[in-house]
């Protein structure tokens, strides 16, 4: 039982939810990356790979969430999850995930069985990919009892991270089928650089508001920035997940480094670090959440 005479870390959710939030973001972001790449008429594997990655990655995440349920993983009771979409963010999210999975399977894998890829279907699927990313943030954002989560910046952060990790996953996948991915053209890295900068700004604002918010939010902030989670924050998220990828995006245009940094090894290395950072973001936000004290 929680000791609510002081701010107390939440114990409701742990690893499976963290991994699920991460994978849902990666899958949604991967879809959006390919959608964006095909709208920009980028050649190669990028416009396709994310469409293939999206459904399995989001499905794996959703499966982990189902395993996390106490009622038994495949108990028929889990279908009650669909019954309260207008009041519960989790129920609404179940609908969004289900619709996204169906659409992304049709859009991603339909061509394999001869279904022509329709532009309107891609646009609708991209809309639901965006909703998946927003929902992963709102799931935490609507919880008033945990002030660190109860911030409009959580969905903003999670959407930006979904875009960033989605680009990384798509680039990694594209490298497998086409080693020259992102070797010559800078369109993706420029776009990615902008997202990384936006994510860093959102992160700074999120932590600033937590630090100046209610005592439980400040407690969470301290835990992340100087407390028990500080190593994960500074090394995992800030250094590996944001600073190094940003530096990579910026430096690969420098003539002296261009040749080296455009090799498949460096492109893949940057993508892996972005994924690591995205994972640490979910880990930090979920595990630093704390309930406030309940008396004066």
């Amino acid at each position, binding site marked *: *039982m*929680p*000791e*609510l*005479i002081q701010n*107390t870390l*939440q*114990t*409701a*959710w742990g690893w499976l939810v963290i991994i699920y939030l991460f994978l849902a973001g990666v899958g949604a972001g991967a879809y959006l990356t390919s959608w964006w790449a095909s709208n920009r008429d980028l050649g190669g594997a990028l416009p396709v790979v994310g469409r293939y990655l999206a459904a399995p990655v989001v499905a794996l995440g959703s499966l982990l969430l189902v395993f*996390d*349920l*106490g*009622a*038994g993983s495949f*108990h028929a*009771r*889990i279908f*009650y*999850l669909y*019954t*309260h979409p207008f*009041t*519960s*963010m*989790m*129920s609404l999210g*179940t609908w969004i995930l289900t619709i996204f999975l169906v659409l992304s399977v049709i859009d991603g894998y339909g061509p394999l069985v001869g279904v022509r890829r329709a532009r309107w279907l891609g646009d609708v699927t991209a809309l639901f990919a965006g909703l998946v990313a927003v929902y992963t943030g709102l799931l935490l954002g*609507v*919880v*008033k*009892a*945990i002030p660190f989560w109860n911030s409009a910046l959580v969905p903003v952060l999670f959407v930006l991270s979904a875009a960033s990790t989605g680009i990384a996953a798509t680039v990694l996948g594209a490298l497998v089928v086409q080693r020259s991915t992102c070797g010559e053209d800078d369109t993706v890295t420029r776009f990615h650089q902008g997202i990384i900068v936006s994510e860093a700004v959102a992160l700074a604002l999120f932590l600033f508001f937590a630090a100046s918010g209610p005592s439980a939010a400040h407690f969470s902030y301290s835990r992340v920035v100087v407390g028990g989670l500080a190593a994960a924050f500074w090394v995992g998220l800030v250094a590996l997940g944001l600073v190094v990828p940003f530096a990579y995006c910026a430096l690969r245009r420098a003539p002296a480094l261009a040749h080296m940094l455009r090799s498949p090894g460096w492109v893949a290395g940057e993508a892996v670090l972005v994924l690591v950072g995205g994972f640490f973001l979910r880990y930090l936000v979920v595990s630093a*959440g704390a*309930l*406030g004290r*309940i*008396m004066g």
Partner: protein
Amino acid sequence: MAHYGMLIDLTMCAQCSACTVACQTLYDRPPDQSGVYLLTYETGTFPAVKRTTLPVQCMQCQNPPCVSVCPTGASYRDSATGTVQIDASRCIGCRYCIAACPYGARQYSSTTGVVTKCTFCIGRVADGLEPACVETCIGHARVFGDLDDPGSDVNRAAAERHAVALRSDLGTRPSVYYAS
């Protein structure tokens, strides 16, 4: 129709944990789980310090955050009694309600895979009895009754003793009041 509520008078609480044990015994709960638990804390600065115990349980909120986050409808507010209940046959054990409850009043049972909490002993109340924690309280620190009835014991005692709800700033509108 009723709206059941409770007053807990901290000046009469002997910190004996009889309420916790009564709840565990009646509902066959394991030692680490109970519908009621005691938080002990210190107030004041030396030498004027005081050690106080706060019995905490489901506040039976009128605007319960656990109900609004519940994706399955397992958590619901029963309008006939004004209490918050859990339909275990709909609970999938997602624990969203545990995260959403500002009072830490809900517990996850890994043996049953569902969430439990204080029910205000609604079955006993329907039989004309008081909740087990009220009946067993040696200091008569607990007063139970219908908040909709202006003349009820709980309403009169709460008014006389200037009782307050916990964290009313969150808009949860609890039905459990504390006097100190």
